């Protein structure tokens, strides 16, 4: 515990001594009466001051929450002796807000009485937070001395993004071998009718198409499209973001990635994750609720890290980028390295769809001058990048803040459908 003295302590001592000395020098007794109150205050204040013996702790009711939820915290303080004033403060990181409770708070502590101070925090933004440490400052009755202490230790809170539920997702071109919800282009056992063919030894009787068989005079069987799962890789660009106030392109990207992961995993698809930025991180494709939690936990740790060095996609293990996987990229197209990585993926033959998380709403257009021209040139450059991706056969859709994610997904589906028709 660190003890500090108020400037008043020195001032009162000086005033008292000066007053007494002046009284002696000038022979004026009333100067003693002027100085005495300050010496009295000094004496009373120092006599009543005692180092407080405090116990304090801070706890959270939950370690996990979803965006918009409220989490209750509790600060507990107690003292062995009386404390005339105790200031209690818990630093709350940006992204969390104090919904209820006072922070900081000044209170009186009676000896042996434990005070519990509730503090309700609202999770305004997804992310991993460390709340704390707890700062305490005790003062004596006169306010001449202060004791400060820090209760070390932080409480971790992981806030998951609140993602919208997607009804439909981007359909991949290729499927995998395991059962799933995606109708494959190949023929086999399934529900969706594909074709008919002549009967071959081994075909079951229930697959016979009796009408076609009667017309042709020989047995013909139905073929179906099987339902298979797909491999989906979610590509999150974390090189740079555009941000205004409390919202930015990375926030949109993370929420959209969580929504897409949830939608694909519900379809029994395998979903993997690549965070491409100053820190390259990846998650091997997997299925189930456990994979969803792994993806969301990895997304929470995603941050913009400024770096002039980056690693190419070559370093990613092959099983993280399986062949025939659909890659859905969420990127603001701000960094040329991300664009180069996406074009590299396309050149390797991956099925790629890009959601351009538009940074334009987060950048104020200057009113006039060279800055305005530069802003317009920047927008033109972005259009050129989108055109370059489109020319490579990549579905690119611009997503502005405020547009529902489902609408963007539908737009990507439409783009790919017409692109298939054009290729076909």
């Amino acid at each position, binding site marked *: 515990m660190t003890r500090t003295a*108020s*400037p*008043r302590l*020195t*001032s*009162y001592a*000086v*005033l008292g001594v*000066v*007053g*007494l000395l002046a*009284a*002696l020098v*000038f*022979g*004026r*007794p*009333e*100067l*003693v*009466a*002027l*100085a*005495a*109150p*300050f*010496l*009295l*205050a*000094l*004496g*009373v204040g*120092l*006599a*009543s001051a*005692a180092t407080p013996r405090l116990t304090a702790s801070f706890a959270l009711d939950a370690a996990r929450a979803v965006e918009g939820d409220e989490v209750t915290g509790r600060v507990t303080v107690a003292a062995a*002796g009386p404390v*005339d*004033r105790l*200031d209690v*403060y818990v630093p709350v990181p940006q992204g969390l807000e104090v919904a209820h409770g*006072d*922070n*900081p*708070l*000044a*209170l*009186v502590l009676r*000896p*042996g009485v434990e005070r519990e101070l509730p503090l309700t925090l609202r999770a305004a933004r997804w992310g991993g937070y460390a709340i704390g440490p707890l700062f305490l400052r005790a003062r004596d*009755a*006169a*306010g001449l001395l202060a004791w400060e202490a820090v209760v070390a230790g932080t409480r971790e809170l992981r806030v998951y993004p609140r993602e919208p539920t997607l009804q439909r997702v981007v359909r991949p071109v290729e499927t995998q071998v395991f059962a799933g919800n995606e109708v494959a282009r190949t023929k086999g056992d399934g529900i969706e009718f594909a074709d008919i063919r002549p009967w071959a030894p081994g075909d079951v009787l229930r697959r016979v198409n009796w009408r076609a068989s009667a017309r042709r005079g020989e047995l013909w069987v139905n073929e179906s499209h099987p339902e298979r799962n797909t491999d989906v890789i979610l590509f999150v660009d974390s090189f740079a973001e555009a941000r205004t106030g409390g919202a930015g392109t990375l926030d949109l990207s993370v929420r959209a990635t969580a929504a897409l992961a949830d939608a694909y995993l519900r379809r029994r698809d395998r979903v993997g994750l690549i965070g491409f930025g100053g820190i390259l991180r990846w998650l091997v494709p997997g299925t189930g609720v456990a994979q969803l939690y792994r993806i969301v936990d990895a997304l929470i740790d995603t941050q913009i890290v400024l770096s002039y060095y980056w690693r190419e996609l070559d370093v990613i293990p092959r099983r993280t980028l399986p062949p025939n996987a659909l890659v859905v990229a969420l990127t603001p197209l701000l960094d040329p390295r991300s664009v180069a990585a996406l074009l590299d993926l396309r050149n390797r033959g991956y099925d790629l769809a890009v959601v351009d998380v538009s940074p334009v709403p987060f950048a104020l257009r200057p009113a006039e001058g060279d800055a305005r021209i530069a802003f317009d040139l920047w927008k033109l450059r972005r259009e050129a990048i989108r055109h370059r991706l489109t020319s490579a056969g990549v579905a690119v859709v611009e997503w502005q803040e405020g547009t529902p994610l489902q609408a963007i997904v539908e737009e990507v589906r439409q783009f790919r459908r017409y692109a298939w028709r054009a290729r076909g």
Partner: protein
Amino acid sequence: MAAGAAGLGLLVLTAALALRAPSAVGWAVLVCGAGYPAGRHGGSDVWAATAGALLLLAAELASWSIDEDSRIETERPVLLRRGAFVTALALGSFVVGLMLLAAAHVAAGASLVVAGAGVLAAVVAVAVVLRLVRGVGGQTRV
């Protein structure tokens, strides 16, 4: 001259409050206090006790105003305690000042060194009493 010192002291105090400079409060008190005897010419002045108490009250209130941070939510008992302490201190210092002036008036020929020693003795006495009270209070709560 007394009015000038009071005005200057008020100016310094205002600056201390505006700039939130607690160390400047002492200077304001010093200037006002220096102007007081300049306006009184000789003799034992019973108003000195009042002036001393008021100077202390002004210093305490100014320091309280500077120390208070509007960002910190303060519970009512904290304010009441501080207010009661300041009031008691001002009243107590007024009484002590009166006693000192009375003693100086009675012992007109006594030296000021004795008077100063008396002040210090009074302060020490109060401090000892408070220490004892605090110590006894702690033991009774065991």
